[in-house]
């Protein structure tokens, strides 16, 4: 692929992104408290900024960065989404289109004027009312039982990295399932014979758990289920059966003859 092709691909995607942003802004104007729409606008602006910078559209990247920052504040609940703010970004979005279609034009004055309007809209947007503020999501306990594809290790998947990502989501209790480890004579050291049973307490949504497994989700065995509220977690609850001791392709934290807990 030539660099010209890459820029053309960027232009096509940038135009699509602008359309998506515009539609989300128009919808948002009618439903100012719709957090999904706020996220959609933010993600669109974020991608446009990053891709623009990558393909040399520096003026676009710099200008979009300001709009993205403003919407990041809405996303974080620091300022409310208002019609004035949505209108300011809609105005800015037309300007972004010009920065894409004719990046060499002189847009300094227009950029300054639009950013002043954006700043005024952000300043005028009061913090969300307490009742409308995003509530801290409640903690939820999840049971995540998974077994990676046999060729996961050969294909560069790091099970410990996946477990660490789950740990980053909240408090984890991790138990290795060693029941499928074959006898030594039958063991293929390049295959992943372990499974894991994770009890995760987190305020993150299910999608955050699924994101951990994004590259292997389609090929693996995984069951993600909600359990009771955090206080109902039984710390001693057995999760997997004891297995005969045998070397494992994916090393657990300690030699395994029984389920192992990895508290965090």
């Amino acid at each position: 692929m030539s660099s010209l092709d890459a820029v053309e691909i960027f232009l096509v995607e940038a135009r699509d992104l602008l359309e998506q942003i515009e539609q989300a802004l128009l919808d948002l104007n009618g439903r100012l408290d719709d957090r999904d729409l706020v996220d959609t606008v933010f993600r669109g602006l974020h991608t446009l900024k990053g891709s623009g910078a990558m393909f040399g559209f520096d003026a676009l990247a710099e200008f979009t960065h300001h709009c993205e920052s403003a919407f990041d504040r809405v996303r974080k609940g620091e300022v409310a989404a208002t019609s004035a703010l949505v209108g300011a970004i809609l105005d800015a979005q037309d300007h972004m289109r010009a920065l894409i279609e004719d990046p060499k034009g002189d847009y300094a004055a227009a950029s300054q004027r639009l950013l002043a309007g954006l700043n005024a809209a952000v300043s005028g947007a009061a913090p969300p009312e307490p009742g409308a503020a995003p509530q801290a999501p409640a903690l939820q306990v999840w049971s995540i039982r998974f077994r990676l594809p046999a060729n996961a290790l050969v294909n560069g998947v790091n099970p410990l990295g996946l477990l660490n990502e789950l740990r980053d989501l909240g408090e984890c209790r991790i138990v290795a399932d060693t029941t499928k480890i074959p006898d030594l004579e039958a063991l293929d050291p390049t295959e992943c014979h372990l499974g894991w049973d994770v009890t995760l307490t987190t305020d993150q949504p299910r999608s955050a758990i699924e994101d951990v497994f994004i590259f292997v989700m389609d090929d693996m065995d995984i069951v993600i289920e909600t359990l009771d509220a955090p206080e109902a977690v039984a710390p001693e609850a057995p999760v997997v059966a004891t297995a005969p001791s045998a070397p494992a392709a994916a090393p657990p934290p300690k030699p395994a003859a029984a389920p192992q807990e990895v508290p965090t």
Partner: protein
Amino acid sequence: MSASILAVDDSASIRVAIKIALSGAGYAVSEAVNGADGVEKAKAGSYDLIVTDLNMPVMDGLTMIEELRRSPAHMGVPIIFLTTESDAALKQRAKAAGATGWLTKPFDPEQLVKIIKKVLGR
């Protein structure tokens, strides 16, 4: 020591974009201009991760991945492919060839770094 990454792409601009993004995040980046060059450089050096395009002259990315996976030294080395086609069929072909993950072009440099950190397990 920073992780060492091989960037395989026939587009110089994409290689530069990858190099800028990853060098800024502290990775050491080497370049290869197509799949055959990628196989040669991967076998001659030692890389913690490979980022590759799929559509390249001389040898495409799928063939390069298959060839590297046949080499015991390159089993387990994470390989991320960049693609402009986000369809499931291509992802499946690349995964079947032995790829670890993917990123759709044009990519956000922050996204690339995030995915590499994810795949390397930090």
